[in-house]
């Protein structure tokens, strides 16, 4: 569960990126965050990942009060979240298998668990043939699926995705979102930032519109407008 209460956030140079944001995303939700460039979407994500701290207000994620989270507790907190970025952020000199396994390694998982879990999620993402390949040998869509597999392998209660489809072809974009929706149906909370209004209209669901650092729209919309696909 995510709870933002009266959250303001300014960068060190004085840019006010978020102004008094109130937002609550319950367990099991699937929420799109949309808004024009520079609106503050990535800033919210940075707060949710405890990359930065709110200037004022309260941020609670997965039961952790991020205002009070100690530096030492950050790794443990981050393991409760799966993250997917626009630029994939795979470790270049590790194979697909090792990239996904890394997520388990940091939790001090045994080799046995790793040998079970990694092939399982790779198959889920239809990547079983790519396990020994390196990220540069994969297409954008495939790399993003590896990133998704890495986010999933710990079975986190929450997945946060910042423009996961920003760097891949539209046909694969829908595939990625479909996968996220399937994961969501199994109970995982998903927060996905996107530019692509067409896609949001197509899928529908909870849509949060941020403009100029504030929430201007937050409601469920019905999907199904299929014309763009």
């Amino acid at each position, binding site marked *: 569960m995510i709870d933002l209460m009266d959250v303001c956030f300014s960068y060190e140079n004085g840019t006010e990126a978020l102004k008094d944001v109130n937002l609550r995303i319950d367990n099991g939700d699937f929420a799109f965050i949309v808004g024009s460039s520079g609106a503050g979407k990535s800033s919210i994500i940075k707060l949710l990942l405890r990359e930065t701290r709110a200037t004022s207000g309260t941020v609670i994620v997965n039961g952790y009060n991020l205002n009070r989270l100690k530096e030492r507790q950050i790794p443990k*907190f981050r393991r409760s979240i799966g*993250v997917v970025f626009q630029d994939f952020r795979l470790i270049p000199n590790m194979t697909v298998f090792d990239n996904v396994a890394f997520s388990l*390694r940091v939790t*001090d998982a*045994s*080799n046995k668990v790793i040998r079970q879990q990694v092939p399982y999620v790779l198959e889920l993402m239809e990547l079983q043939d790519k396990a020994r390949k390196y990220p540069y040998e994969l297409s954008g869509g495939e790399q993003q699926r590896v990133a998704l597999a*890495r986010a999933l392998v710990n079975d986190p209660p929450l997945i946060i995705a910042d423009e996961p489809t920003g760097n891949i072809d539209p046909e694969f974009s829908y595939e990625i979102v479909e996968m996220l929706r399937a994961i969501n149906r199994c109970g995982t909370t998903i927060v996905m930032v996107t530019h692509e209004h067409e896609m949001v209209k197509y899928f529908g669901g909870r849509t949060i519109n941020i403009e100029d650092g504030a929430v201007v729209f937050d409601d469920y919309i019905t999907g199904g407008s299929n014309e763009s696909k």
Partner: protein
Amino acid sequence: MRASSFRYLVKNGVHNLWTNRMMTIASVGTLVACLLIVGFAVLFSINVDSIVEYIGQQNEVVVFLELGASDEAVESVRANLSEMEGLGDIEYESPEQAFADYKEKLGEDGYLLDGMEDEAAEIYPPKFTAKITEPERVDTLVAAVKRIEYVDKAEAPTDLTKTLVSVRTMVNTIGGAVIAALVLVSVVVITNTIRASVFTRRKEISIMKYVGATNTFIRIPFIVEGILLGIFAALIAFLAIWGGYALFIGAITMESSTWLASLTQYLVPFADVRLQILGGFLLAGILTGGIGSAFSMRGHLKV
């Protein structure tokens, strides 16, 4: 942490050495160069020390007592000398001994001295010979010996000793400064090399942080990498200095000039310092490598 996780991290460190092999070669090369220069400086100064010490040990102060000094006087001087710091073994030569020696030296003509035995004490003063263990203090030692009661004369060859002592002081001072400077240079260079390697991998580090890796987890492979770099460099430098030293000694021994060749007997054989050098190199390599990587990580772990 599980043993299997630790093994994984160590394996990662080894793997990184290979993945970043250009960086590895650069770091090892730098470290080898620094270790070699320091190693040769140390060897040079050890040898100068050894030569100075050897020659210093040949140094003696010869102490003559007053003619006809009593047995009590001799014992009192002996006690004074043995209490004096800076002097080693003391040998006594009685007038009778000196007389006998002289007589023997005359050989066939020795009979000329027959019957004069009783006058030995009037011809020869009692004499002590003391080794000098602190050649740098030879002047004060001789002066102090002269002040002892019943002592008539004290002599020591001071010129050579003084030159050698000043050479040693100079070599040690300059050598010490060179070593200190180089140690500093190596730490800086190694830290920078590893920092560059950390910098090229900062993205990787930040990704690891996003996935929830602790700082320790991220550090271990880098530290393993640094320590392995250090060990490689130490071994290479050790072999190089061993070979270099053997060549040097070989070249001097081959030298026809007797002056140089005679020097070899004072040189410290490599076998005597082998373990210390290997140990010193390994310690220095591991410390610079390990501390260097730990230091270079600072600032990159905050994401």
